[in-house]
């Protein structure tokens, strides 16, 4: 009770003293303000971009193992024997995966992807996009349930009994081929083929996938039933797109294996790794050439998380330095204050103040300063977090920001701690003054 009264008195006294020297107090806490604001905003922007990256990876499905066909190096260089490059995953591979992994994998998604020139039947517009032959499972594996802007995704009826010539298209493709029109029920032709595909669905804008060797821009994709794709192309894909011309015999471009996600995180992680190992062993045994690759989004997630941790440590270090500088500013001012108020210290000691009372007084003054500085810094930091992405969006830049409650609490409590840490020495110096000397001080 007495202690609380003392604290209350001392705090009100500290505030009064600070108000007495407004400019000086402001300048001395400027370091703390800048430091705190920097911590809050840097953390928000850092976390924001990291979260974007993590989301990106999560969208690929953390329980997925992605097996892709890769053109082996020798095929790419020596094309003497045949014009057609023959490599990659086969339907047999897919069948073997389904067979051996049926207890570990809940879904497999074979896909055939090739670049193509796409144009509306009625128009001369042209778009260099990608044709993706796939199955209705695509929507589940790539989590497209909420990404449909109009119409629907491919269904079982599009595959069986007779493959239909329908397609679902990405947002950019829709905008390029049918500007200002409703693309549903319009028809698209693939250059060099005599078949047209009716648009049954349009997807929303999707973030590109930057995790592979090449960036996958989903927004220019055209999804057609895998069976339709096969009957269209036969076994050979003729590549006719920007810069590339040639033919490839690739049965499947990619197989996505969705691993059973029951059980706790560690179990699922081990299962994903196990599936990847089995696939690797199997493909190594059946493919003489290394014409395949395995991507595990989970591995990339862990790598991204490690990157994030490193970034956080770096940030903490920068924050530490800026708050150290702020703390030195506070200490400097407090030392000057102690000298300036030596006589007051003498008076208080003569009237019965213990050393601990004097320590408390000056320590609280420092803490009040850094606390106020912390509060202002948090406000400045928060307004920057809201302002910078807004201003950037005016110039068509995207600055992702994510504020964590703990970053505010952290920045604020560090500011207070800096007050205690850097106020301690001046406060002790004040307390250890000889009362007689202090009273004589002019």
């Amino acid at each position, binding site marked *: 009770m*007495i202690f609380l*009264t*003392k604290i209350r*008195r001392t705090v009100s*006294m500290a505030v*009064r*003293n600070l108000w*007495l020297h407004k400019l000086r107090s402001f300048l001395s806490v400027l370091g703390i303000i800048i430091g705190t604001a920097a911590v809050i905003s840097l953390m928000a922007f850092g976390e924001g971009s990291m979260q974007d990256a993590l989301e990106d990876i999560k969208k690929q499905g953390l329980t997925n193992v992605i097996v892709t066909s890769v053109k082996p190096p020798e095929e790419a260089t020596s094309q003497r024997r045949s014009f057609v490059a023959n490599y990659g995953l086969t339907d047999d591979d897919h069948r073997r995966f389904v067979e051996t992994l049926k207890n570990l994998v809940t879904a497999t998604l074979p896909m055939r992807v090739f670049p193509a020139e796409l144009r509306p039947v009625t128009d001369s517009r042209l778009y260099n996009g990608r044709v993706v032959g796939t199955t209705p499972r695509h929507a589940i594996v790539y989590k497209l349930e909420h990404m449909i802007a109009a119409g629907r995704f491919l269904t079982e009826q599009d595959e069986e009994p007779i493959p239909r010539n329908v397609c679902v298209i990405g947002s950019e493709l829709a905008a390029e081929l049918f500007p200002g029109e409703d693309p549903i029920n319009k028809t698209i032709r693939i250059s060099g083929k005599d078949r047209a595909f009716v648009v049954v669905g349009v997807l929303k804008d999707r973030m590109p996938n930057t995790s592979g060797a090449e960036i996958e821009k989903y927004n220019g994709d055209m999804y057609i039933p895998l069976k339709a794709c096969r009957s269209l192309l036969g076994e050979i894909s003729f590549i006719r797109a920007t810069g590339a011309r040639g033919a490839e015999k690739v049965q499947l471009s990619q197989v996505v294996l969705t691993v059973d996600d029951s059980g706790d995180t560690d179990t699922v992680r081990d299962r994903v790794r196990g599936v990847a190992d089995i696939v690797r062993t199997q493909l190594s045994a059946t493919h003489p050439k290394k014409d395949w690759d395995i991507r595990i989004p989970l591995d990339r997630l862990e790598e991204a998380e490690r990157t994030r941790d490193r970034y956080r440590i770096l940030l903490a270090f920068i924050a530490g330095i800026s708050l150290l500088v702020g703390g030195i500013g506070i200490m400097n001012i407090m030392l000057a204050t102690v000298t300036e108020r030596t*006589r*007051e210290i*003498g*008076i*208080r*000691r*003569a*009237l*019965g*103040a*213990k*050393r*601990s*009372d004097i320590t408390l007084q000056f320590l609280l003054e420092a803490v009040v300063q850094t606390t106020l500085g912390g509060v202002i810094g948090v406000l400045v930091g928060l307004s920057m977090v809201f302002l910078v992405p807004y201003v950037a969006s005016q110039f068509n830049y995207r600055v992702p920001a994510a504020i964590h409650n703990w970053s505010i609490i952290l920045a604020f409590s560090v500011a207070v701690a800096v007050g205690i840490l850097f106020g301690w020495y001046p406060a002790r110096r004040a307390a250890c003054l000889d*009362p*007689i000397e202090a*009273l004589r001080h002019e």
Partner: protein
Amino acid sequence: MRVIARVENLTKHYFLEGEVVKALRGVTLSFEEGDFVALMGPSGSGKSTLLNLLGCLDRPTSGRYFLGNQDVSTMTDDQLSEIRSRYIGFIFQSYNLIQQYTVVENIEVPMLYQGKVDASTRRRCIRLAEMVGLGERLNHRPTQLSGGQQQRVAIARALVNDPHVILADEPTGNLDSKTSDEIMELLCTLNEAGKTIIMVTHENDIAAWARRVVRMRDGKVESDVRTAPLTSPGSTLASVMP
């Protein structure tokens, strides 16, 4: 009369630039309750050192000091702070008020360090301010007061903890003669009400207000003369001194 403070063979040595300065060389004195003592002597005679020791601001090199019936000569720094806040009232030559505080808040400071701040303390501070004639200026700050008024605040502050002894260090040193007389009259009134006062001065006409004059020279008591008899405490201030 009861002895309220007693020093026995008190010495105080300072170390100044490698040399020992013997400020007090064995002082033995006792002060009775209700006395008004003037400590006199040329500068360097040790009177200020003695006052600092009496005020528990410093510890003697040797000898003993009893305040009330406690031996304070060997107490720790914290214990001395406690003694100062409970049993001693200070009046300084340059008033030594805290500039940021109002009149009432200044009077309250010793109570703050006793840990007694409540509404009744505040009322007592206001009554003391009224008693020294500053009832109209309770919320003024020291810079808004004249020297005499500031010294009155200091006197009220010296009374707030109802001390055993009031120590005054040249209380009129910064004041003109008319104001000095007013301050001395106030101190006399307090003494008549039973307050024990020990005052350092080098002016004879100020010392003339006291009942006993102790002269010092070279760290020793030179003379000790009673100039007026000790009387039993009056009751003029009984209302403000619970």
